[in-house]
């Protein structure tokens, strides 16, 4: 009934992932688990390989070594759209919205996988297509309501300020009703108030829909506040993994990342 804080079994398992680009190692032999319903943060300095890790998880990059299993499906190479079909959604570090479309249409694209009418039916826009559009529109409106972006519903996303674009991108990911949500620096470049809003949305998503969340974030306060677990990467290697308290106390992490401030 209430999935809150009830952390389940491992649903995502990455084993011995190594990835390099033209000889440059981005990830070296990284293994990590993510459990159902948890909020797991990946932290680390710039260039530590955090984004690459997300890209491996949802199939944008294909690691040279290692394998990823998600909900028991083992694979070493999966395409991004397959990952989407398995319920993995994500946002990007540099907002990757569809600039020429409205907020509404952007979020609607998040439901594309759930829309099944063919193009001939769509050309007629009658019966099944219209019902489908309305059904999904309603669902999208609920997301718009959830994220409190009603007043910009029909605005082209290109015209929105940064913070709102991030919110819309989260909405697009949520529209897919994912079981695993990957957020790449969801709060980068936001002011304090926007960060608070975004934190609340992330916690609400985790709480209300039971979504498992993996996020990359630089703001330590935020990470320590909202994560159940923190994984620390440094130069493509994993140097820490545990509860926020454990990670905070880990000497390697302190040396490599947190510095002397702790």
């Amino acid at each position, binding site marked *: 009934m209430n999935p809150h804080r009830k952390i389940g079994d491992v649903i995502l398992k990455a084993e011995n992932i190594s990835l390099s680009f033209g000889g440059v190692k981005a990830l070296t032999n990284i293994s990590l688990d993510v459990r159902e319903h948890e909020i797991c943060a990946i932290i680390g300095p710039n260039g530590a390989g955090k984004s690459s890790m997300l890209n491996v998880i*949802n199939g*944008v990059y294909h690691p040279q070594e290692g394998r990823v299993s998600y909900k028991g499906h083992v694979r070493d190479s999966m*395409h*991004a*759209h397959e*990952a*989407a*079909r398995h319920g993995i*959604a*994500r946002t*990007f570090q540099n907002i*990757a*919205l*569809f*600039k*020429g*479309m409205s907020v509404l*249409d952007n979020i*609607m*694209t*998040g*439901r*594309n*996988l759930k*829309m099944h*009418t063919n*193009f001939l039916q*769509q*050309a*007629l*826009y009658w019966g099944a*297509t*219209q019902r*489908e*559009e*309305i059904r999904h*529109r*309603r669902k999208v409106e609920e997301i718009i309501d959830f994220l409190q972006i009603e007043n910009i519903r029909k605005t082209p996303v290109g015209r929105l300020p940064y913070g709102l674009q991030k919110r819309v991108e989260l909405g*697009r990911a949520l529209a*897919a009703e994912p079981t695993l949500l990957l957020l790449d620096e969801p709060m980068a470049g936001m002011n304090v108030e926007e960060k608070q809003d975004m934190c609340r949305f992330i916690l609400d998503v985790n709480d209300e829909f039971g979504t498992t969340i993996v996020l990359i974030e630089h703001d330590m306060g935020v990470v320590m506040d909202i994560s159940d677990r923190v994984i620390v990467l440094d130069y493509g290697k994993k140097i820490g993994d545990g509860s926020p308290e454990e990670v905070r106390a880990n000497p390697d992490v302190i040396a490599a990342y947190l510095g002397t401030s702790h």
Partner: protein
Amino acid sequence: MIYREAGQFKINYQSDSAILPIVQDRMFMIGLMVVSFLVIPVLGSDYFLAGILTPFLILSLAALGLNILTGYAGQLSLGSAAFMAVGAFATYNFMIRIPGIPLLLALVLGGLMAALVGILFGLPSLRIKGFYLAVATLAAQFFIEWALTKFGWFTNYSSSGVISAPEMQVFGIVIDSAAKKYLFTLAIVALLTLAAKNMVRSSLGRSWMAVRDMDVAAEVIGIPILKTKLLAFAISSFYCGIAGALWAFVLLGTVDPQAFDLHRSFQVLFMIIVGGVGSILGSYLGAAFIVLLPIVLNLIGQLFHGAISTQFLSNMEMMLFGGLIIFFLIVEPLGLARLWQIAKEKLRMWPFPH
């Protein structure tokens, strides 16, 4: 100014996502349809119908086809005329090789052949992008032009390579007069426009735009990139194919590969640049512009009573086209349709500036 939207609220999603959600726009469209279907065929002169409106409509359809591919799905093509040619020749061959085939069926089959060829030449789009792809579509342009000229089978071994259209009949009505040809074209173009509008406002259209705007993100969302692109190629080519068939049968009465050369491809491309990339309305505005410009230039030429050579005029036309393309890309990359949209926004906000 003319808009009075207060009180036009939406109580369901159907009306909120209607093609024309504003009453005044709907009235305008109804008026336009009445004039186009009922008034113009009666009052229009043969020259006006056959020399201006019919080519305008056909080219609009071709521009619409290209706009689906280039404007909505973001795949630049320089080979639209080739797909027009496929449509024209395929329709011709269906008509002469299957006796008694209804014109409309032949037309659809011709469009489908164009779609098939479109898919074939769209296949590289999985791996190549941008101008690489544009160059690949040039391959289609040259190859198809060559094949149609080279193989007599396509032209039914006509000695000149030029073939004449057989008599056209729809539901027992022989389409012979300028007015009938105009109406026939108008009906087809209107229907296909509606279908295009419907596609671009449903999930297919959103997938196209997603692929156009940010293909990596589209893939991550689960949009099948290749399928989406190929559908764009297929549907775009279908539209171009129908336009080609209409051009050959309804407008010219003959089918000649030279009518579909690279120049035609560029002409169609110019229409969408001037009219508006990624806008259905833009396809029409662009076609109107490109069709009318030479006519206007000619009229100006006539004013000078032959003091200006036709050669000069045609060079001027080239310069003007080229200049306009650059002008629009610099000043208003979204073309006339965007200007129209801005004007409409202004009217809705009138007298306020924003």
